[in-house]
C-alpha cells in the first residue's frame, strides 16, 4: 500500500513541474538571451590606430572595478558622421554586451546625435537587472569619451594649422 502511495506521489510531483510554469520564472536574475547572444557573437571587436586623426578613443573604467571599456570611433571629417566603430572590453557578460550594443547603435550616426544615447536605453534593450545597470552606464561614458577624444584631437590639429596671432614659433614647411 505504501508502494502505491509513493508511486502516486511521484506522478503528482512530476505533473507539477511541467514546463507550463517555466514562463513565470523569467525573473530578473537570468541572463537575457540578448546578452548571451552579444557574448557569443560580439559585433565590432577590434582596434583602430589610436594616432589616426579620424579616430576617437574612449577608455573608461578600471581593472580594480572589474570593468574596462575601450570604444573607438572613426569619423568622416567633412560630415561629422561616425563611419565605423570598434570596441574591446574587460568585464562581465553584461559589460561586453553593453559595449557591443553601443558600437552597433552609434555606427552611421552623427557625433552630436550619439551623445544623446542614454544608459537606460542600453539597459532596457538588454533587459539588464539592477545589479548590472552600471555596465550600461560605463558604455554611455565610453561613447561620450570617444567623441570627446576625437573633438579634442580635431581642435588640437586646427590649433596647430591656424597661423599664430602673436609671433609664436611656427614650423616652416
Amino acid at each position, binding site marked *: 500500500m505504501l508502494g502505491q502511495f509513493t508511486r502516486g506521489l511521484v506522478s503528482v510531483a512530476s505533473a507539477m513541474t511541467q514546463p507550463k510554469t517555466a514562463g513565470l520564472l523569467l525573473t530578473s536574475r537570468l541572463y537575457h538571451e540578448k546578452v*548571451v547572444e552579444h557574448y557569443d557573437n560580439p559585433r565590432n571587436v577590434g582596434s583602430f590606430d589610436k594616432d589616426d586623426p579620424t579616430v576617437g578613443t574612449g577608455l573608461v573604467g578600471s581593472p*580594480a572595478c572589474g570593468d574596462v571599456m575601450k570604444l573607438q570611433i572613426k569619423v568622416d571629417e567633412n560630415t561629422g558622421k561616425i563611419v565605423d566603430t570598434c570596441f*574591446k*572590453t*574587460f568585464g*562581465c*557578460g553584461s*559589460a561586453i554586451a553593453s559595449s557591443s550594443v553601443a558600437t552597433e547603435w552609434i555606427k552611421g550616426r552623427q557625433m552630436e546625435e550619439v551623445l544623446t544615447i542614454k544608459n537606460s536605453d542600453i539597459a532596457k534593450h538588454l533587459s539588464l537587472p539592477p545589479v548590472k545597470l552600471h555596465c550600461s552606464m560605463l558604455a554611455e561614458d565610453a561613447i561620450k569619451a570617444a567623441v570627446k577624444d576625437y573633438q579634442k584631437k580635431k581642435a588640437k590639429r586646427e590649433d596647430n594649422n591656424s597661423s599664430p596671432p602673436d609671433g609664436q614659433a611656427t614650423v616652416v614647411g
Partner: protein
Amino acid sequence: MATAAAVAVVGDDDHSGGGSGGGREGEGVMMKGVHMAGRPLYLDMQATSPVDPRVLDAMLPYYMDQFGNPHSRTHMYGWESDEAVEKAREQIAKLIGANAKEIIFTSGATEANNIAIKGVMHFYKDKKKHVITTQTEHKCVLDSCRHLQQEGFEVTYLPVRKDGLIDMEELKAAIRPDTGIVSIMTVNNEIGVIQPMAEIGEFCRKNKVFLHTDAAQAAGKIPISVDDMKVDLMSLSAHKIYGPKGVGALYMRRRPRVRVEAQMSGGGQERGIRSGTVPTPLAVGMGAACEIAMEEMEHDEKYIKELTDRLYKGITSQLDGVIVNGSLEHRYVGNLNLSFAYVEGESLLMGLKEVAVSSGSACTSASLEPSYVLRALGVEEDMAHTSIRFGIGRFTTKEEIDRAIQLTVDQVQKLRNMSPLWEMVQEGIDLKSIQWAQH
C-alpha cells in the same frame, strides 16, 4: 555518471568561433537565457558533490519502510532507527579518530560552526571574552564572530600570508589570557589551502585555549585525527564528501571536556546539545559516506591528483598569464583556483557554460566585491576579478578534464582578444602606470 552524456553530445561540435555547443535547434537545455547542448560537466566539488550511489543505497530503507523516529523508545521502528543512527555515529567518529560519544548530529557544518563558536563563548562568557579566527574563514564562522562582537566579545581576525597559510607568530601575538576559542579551518573552501593544524593545536593546548576547526572540506579527503591535531571541536559536512545535503556533525572532545551552550531548545536530543529529531536517513547517509571516504581516501587522492595535474598542465601549456591562488605545496589536490590575467571571471563563466565551475569575481557574488578570501591573500583587485575555481572529485573523468581544458583555453583566448588590457600589455604598456577614469 550523467555528466559523461554531456561530453558525448558536445564532443561532435564544430570548433569554429568561441561558442561551443550552442545553436542546435530543438536540442539541449535552455536555462537563464543560455542554451547548452546538455548538462554541464560538473567541476564544482567544493560547492557540493553528487551522492555516491552506495550512500543512497544505505539511506533508502530509512525512507521506505524503516522510517521510525530514533527517539521513539517504545517500539521496533524507533529501536531500529536508533540503531542505524548509532552505527552512523560510529562510522563518523572512526573517520576522524574520535569516540562515538563525541559526535553530535547537526543540520550541517554551518550549524556545527555556530554551536562551536557561539556555544563555547556563551558558556564560558564569565571568564573568556576573546575569540581568534582568520580572515579566510567560511562566512558562517565570520558571521558568528560578528554576532559575538555585537554581544560585546572581542574578535581578532588573523591575516594570512600570500600563500593562504596563517603566520604562527601572528597567532602567538594575538593570544590573550581571556581568549576562549581559536577557530581555524583545516582546508579552505575557495583556495584549498591546508593549515598547519598540528602546530596550531600544539600551541593552543599549551595555552589552554579551545581549538575549533571547520573540517567540512577536509574530512574524508585528507587524513584527519582529532588527537594528532589536538582539536577540541570540529565541524563536518556530509554533502562535501558524496553524502546527502542537510546533515553534518560537530565533534566535541570529552577529555578534557568542552562545554557549550545549546543553540536549539527542545527535547534534549543529542545530549542536550542539539535538540530536534535526528534525521535517520540523512545520518545513515553521512555515516556511509564517511566510511566509504575512509576506505577510499588513498585511492581518491591519487586519482584526483592525476586529474588536477592534467588540468593544470593542459591549461598552462596553452596559455600564459595563469596563476594558482594559494599555496601549491600545502593544498588539497581536488581544488584548483586559477586566475587568468586580463580576463574577467564572470565573462569567462558565461563562456564556460558547458562547465560548472565557480568564480571569485565580484559579478558572481551578490555584492560587487571580489572574493574576500582572495583579497586576504593580497591578490590585486583586478586579478581577484579573474579567478575560477575548479573542483575535482571522485567521479570526475579524464574526458571531462580534457573537455574543460579545451573549453577554458578557447574562451580565455577569445576573451583576451576582446580585452583592452591584454592589448595594452601586448603593446608593452605597464598597466599600473595608467590613470584609469573611475566612473
